[in-house]
């Protein structure tokens, strides 16, 4: 069949909301776009374990320690689902990890900010997971089957984390003066980076058009960001806290909140490697991988020995 026909069949399926499966024909660019996006998402889960992992040893109660450890563990699980989804497109997990470590592949820039107080755990749940969910819920209906199924599981757990995060902020916001100050400070530090999680303005975003057509993506960056601002502006009132934006105000006409200008210079700086923790995060991942090398080799060597032995016994 000529490629044009294949492309037509492919696009028809997409338009009819039929999921594309690993064995189906797909345009090379679709495959590449998905590999890039899914692996980037997987890397974000794995790197995202680090800023929260930073507080596991210091969690202030046994219950909070349990919740935090379980959450970070869930992120590892999300990484696993997503690497598996990407593998169905013909790339191995080791290749993807190599791309992460070499800097070729990206991960969400939000994880290049430091976690400085316990309140950051709650605020990350609320704002960072909140923004992630806003981005990800539409991906549950994305056109590629394995990705959309992975996202359904991910989103379910993320919503749970977001509620837990907000709940912990409610507790802190009813606590001592220092606890309340901690929350406000954490909101002040995470608010703008969270808004940056939706990516550049649609007008400046590459790849958006093709991704829309292929239904990898379903909403523009600015649209999702606006929804997020609207949502958080309401929620922050429940905490008796404020968002660090003097320009934030209700626009009766648009029926949305107007908000201030994002510092895109900071955004591009962090994306290109110049964030507070970029080097620290990648170094931590590389170190874990390098120090685990002998463990992975031992496991492989042992499995091979066993295989030989059971073959010999069978013979």
């Amino acid at each position, binding site marked *: 069949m000529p490629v044009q026909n294949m492309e037509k069949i492919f696009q028809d399926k997409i338009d009819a909301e039929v999921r594309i499966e690993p064995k189906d024909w797909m345009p090379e660019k679709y495959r590449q776009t998905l590999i890039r996006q899914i692996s980037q998402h997987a890397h974000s889960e794995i790197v995202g374990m680090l800023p929260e992992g930073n507080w596991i040893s210091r969690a202030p109660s046994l219950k909070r320690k*349990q919740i935090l450890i379980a959450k970070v563990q869930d992120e590892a699980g999300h990484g696993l689902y997503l690497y598996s989804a990407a593998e169905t497109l013909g790339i191995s997990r080791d290749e993807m990890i190599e791309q992460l470590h070499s800097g070729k592949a990206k991960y969400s820039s939000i994880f290049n900010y430091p976690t400085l107080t316990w309140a950051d755990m709650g605020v990350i749940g609320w704002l960072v997971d909140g923004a992630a969910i806003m981005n990800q819920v539409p991906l549950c209906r994305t056109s590629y089957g394995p990705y959309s199924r992975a996202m359904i599981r991910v989103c379910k757990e993320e919503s749970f984390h977001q509620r837990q995060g907000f709940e912990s902020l409610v507790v802190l916001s009813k606590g001592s003066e220092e606890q309340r100050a901690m929350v406000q400070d954490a909101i002040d530090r995470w608010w703008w980076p969270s808004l940056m999680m939706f990516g550049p303005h649609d007008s400046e975003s590459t790849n958006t058009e093709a991704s829309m057509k292929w239904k990898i993506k379903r909403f523009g960056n600015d649209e999702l960001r606006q929804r997020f601002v609207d949502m958080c502006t309401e929620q922050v009132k429940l905490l008796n806290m404020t968002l660090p934006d003097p320009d934030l105000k209700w626009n009766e006409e648009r029926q949305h909140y107007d908000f201030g200008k994002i510092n895109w210079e900071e955004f591009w700086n962090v994306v290109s490697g110049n964030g507070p923790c970029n080097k620290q995060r990648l170094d931590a991942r590389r170190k874990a991988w390098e120090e685990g090398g002998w463990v*992975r080799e031992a496991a492989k060597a*042992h499995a091979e020995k066993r295989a030989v032995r059971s073959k010999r016994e069978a013979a």
Partner: protein
Amino acid sequence: MSTPQLFLYNLHLADNALMLAQRNSEWTGHGPVLEQDIAITNISLDLLGQARNFYQYAASLYNGFDNDEKKAVDQYVPRLWKTYNRELEEDDLAFLRDEHQYLNLLIAELPKGDWAFSVLRQFFFSVFQFHQYQQLQQNNDAQLAAIAEKSIKEVAYHLRWSGEWVIRLGDGTDESNRRIKNVLADLWPFTGEMFVGATFEAINVSLLKEAWLQKVQAVFIEATLEMPAAKWFQSGGKEGRHTEHLGYLLAEMQCLQRTYPNVTW
């Protein structure tokens, strides 16, 4: 067993689980491969759950004590909590005691080391804990028996998982074999303490040694490891005499509770 002793025994069991959970959770996000990062984190979570059960039970016992009983365990109760004027809670016990008030086995507090250290430590500990909880399931104290019964399935998994890793590393590459032999020499002196009973222990731990040795031996054979000949063992944990490592662990673990006392988190 008297109720003050039961209180101390709960602390001992809880402290064991908490310290090892704390150490294992240092792997979270830093494991050698994603699946094992998840696995050792799971063990951490299981142990943390066990610790909570024991601490909660200890706290409820204490809150029901009469004055004589309170006095009998006074030296193990956090000084700072006494200024709070409220009932004792699990977190007071976990986060507010001084170093010498912790009663865990020394093996549980040692730094995580490399993967070989962590899995071999877990194996030694889990074999012991499995037999310990098996006995505790029969205990006259219904609450203790219930916690043990609830936890033993988890422990059986920890034991299987860590035993498989001991075999994998012992019978893996030259490097993994060398590494696990090294850490075996480090860890072995910390195993003897498990079998030397303290007055607060509800079971006769010395009777568990034979079964422990048999299980270790069986796994070591598969792992091509030899049982160490060394007969000298470290001690002190059950009396609150710890290694130099515990102080650092506590400084980190307790810092928020110490800096912001008596608030809700």
